[in-house]
């Protein structure tokens, strides 16, 4: 019974933890402009993140090595540093976006400008990183983040034409008025939002934090294989809500307040309250994850002591690095840059950096020195290679598409 409860808890936190500001915004933007015609990308992205998160978790549980240690060891210091620089900048952008997301959600709740909420969000995030135990942090934000299910409930309340939604999703076509370049640009953005590299840095380091062993692998696999797809289902619900309400109204999403409109229309003030709670929890959880990820990547590259299971004094450089990242993120927000814009760029840059992260994981997952008898099976390798090709193409196409479409304008 207790074990079942543990499994259930794991799945619920995986669902709640899957959606972050990037998924929230990108899915709503896409839904409001392309309907569900990009739903297939979410499916492709979710399968990919399941595959590689599971692989990185397995490497961490079996060998005790987190992803960035593996990246440095396998790719050497030069390629490792290039990867570190890229991952760190993306992490920094994502931290900025998530803190902005917390503040924007609080503005939606209070009507007080988000800029005034930023310092509050910063201190709250830092306090949790400084003082709260890893498992508590994960479970609380994950469970509260689950209130984003309100998007799925709202979709039902809106009584959409299910047939037309299904046909949009199953026979994707580019809506009139949108260029194919923009369509593919957003395809890459959605893919990047689903497969953001920080998720595997966090997932593998989290496996070390929680001292997973080989016997925990089954549970981690269940968490990933059930939790992430259900999280992906939430992403689709966000897109569908926007497709049902905003697309016909001629509204294309550029702000978080617009993302909330379909939910308000469906469920009124109660739904709005649940939505804000969910957005705050999801972005707060993601802010924690991305801040920790930037600490993890730096510490693992340079071999510093790291981890929330240690006292801050026993992982001094790790904690200093995270404080610096948080302050840098807030400094970026203080310039008055639109957090939503930062989010949109961060998911596209994520897509660009994906190959650097996923190739070393795949190679180490095949190395018996690390993995013993737990090396990848043939089927996993085949699927992973197909994904590497997709990832590579998306990464190469991202910048040209960004320039050609004026970042999806």
């Amino acid at each position: 019974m207790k074990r079942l409860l543990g499994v259930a808890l794991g799945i619920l936190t995986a669902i709640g933890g899957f959606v972050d500001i990037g998924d929230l915004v990108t899915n709503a933007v896409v839904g409001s402009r392309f309907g569900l015609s990009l739903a297939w990308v979410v499916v492709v992205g979710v399968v990919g993140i399941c595959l590689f998160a599971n692989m990185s978790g397995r490497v961490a549980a079996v060998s005790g090595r987190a992803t960035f240690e593996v990246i440095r060891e396998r790719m050497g210091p030069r390629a490792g540093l290039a990867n570190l620089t890229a991952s760190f900048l993306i992490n920094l952008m994502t931290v900025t976006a998530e803190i902005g997301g917390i503040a924007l959600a609080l503005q939606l709740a209070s009507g007080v400008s988000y800029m005034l909420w930023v310092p509050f969000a910063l201190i709250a995030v830092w306090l949790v990183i400084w003082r709260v135990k890893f498992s508590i942090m994960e479970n609380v934000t994950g469970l509260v983040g689950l209130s984003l299910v309100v998007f799925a409930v709202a979709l039902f309340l809106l009584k959409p034409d299910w047939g037309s939604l299904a046909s949009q999703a199953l026979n994707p076509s580019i809506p009139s008025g949108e260029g194919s370049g923009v369509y593919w640009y957003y395809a890459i953005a959605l893919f990047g939002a689903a497969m953001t590299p920080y998720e595997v840095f966090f997932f593998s380091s989290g496996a070390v934090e929680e001292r997973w062993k080989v016997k925990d692998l089954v549970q981690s696999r269940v968490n990933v294989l059930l939790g992430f797809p259900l999280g992906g289902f939430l992403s689709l619900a966000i897109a569908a809500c926007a497709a049902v309400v905003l697309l016909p109204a001629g509204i294309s999403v550029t702000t978080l307040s617009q993302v909330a409109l379909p939910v308000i229309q469906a469920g009124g003030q109660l739904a709005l309250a649940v939505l804000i709670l969910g957005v705050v929890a999801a972005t707060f959880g993601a802010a924690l994850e991305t801040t920790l990820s930037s600490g993890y990547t730096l510490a693992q590259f340079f071999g510093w002591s790291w981890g929330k299971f240690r006292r801050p004094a026993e992982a001094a450089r790790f904690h200093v690095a995270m404080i610096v990242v948080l302050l840098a993120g807030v400094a970026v927000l203080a310039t008055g840059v639109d957090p939503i814009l930062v989010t949109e760029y961060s998911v596209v840059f994520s897509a660009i950096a994906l190959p650097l992260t996923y190739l070393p994981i795949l190679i180490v997952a095949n190395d018996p020195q690390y993995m013993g008898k737990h090396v990848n099976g043939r089927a996993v390798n085949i699927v992973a290679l197909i994904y590497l090709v997709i990832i590579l193409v998306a990464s190469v196409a991202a910048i040209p598409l960004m320039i050609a479409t004026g970042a999806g304008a």
Partner: protein
Amino acid sequence: MILNDILGRDVMDSNGERLGEVSDVRFALDAAPAQLLSRARMVGIVVSPRTATSFLGYERQDLSQPWPVAQLLRWRHRGSFLVLWEDIAVMGPDGVRLRSEFTAYESTLPR
């Protein structure tokens, strides 16, 4: 001497003909145990005729997964060989020169 001084340097035979680059340096822990671990004695250098970036060691290990990455890397490093310390005449930042009667050994790692 540090490893960075020789990794990636050109390897020449005694006539000055280029044979490749130092892609790795092999050690063996076969001396009498010291304090905690035996001394690590230098066995020799691994020479790759094409590229010094020993990419992931596929050429020396019995790894064949993931296909075709493993096969590709192995192919890129075909012709790698091991030269023992006894056959090295000079080594340093200017490169490595081998003695005239050097022997090339298979670079595969013992399992």
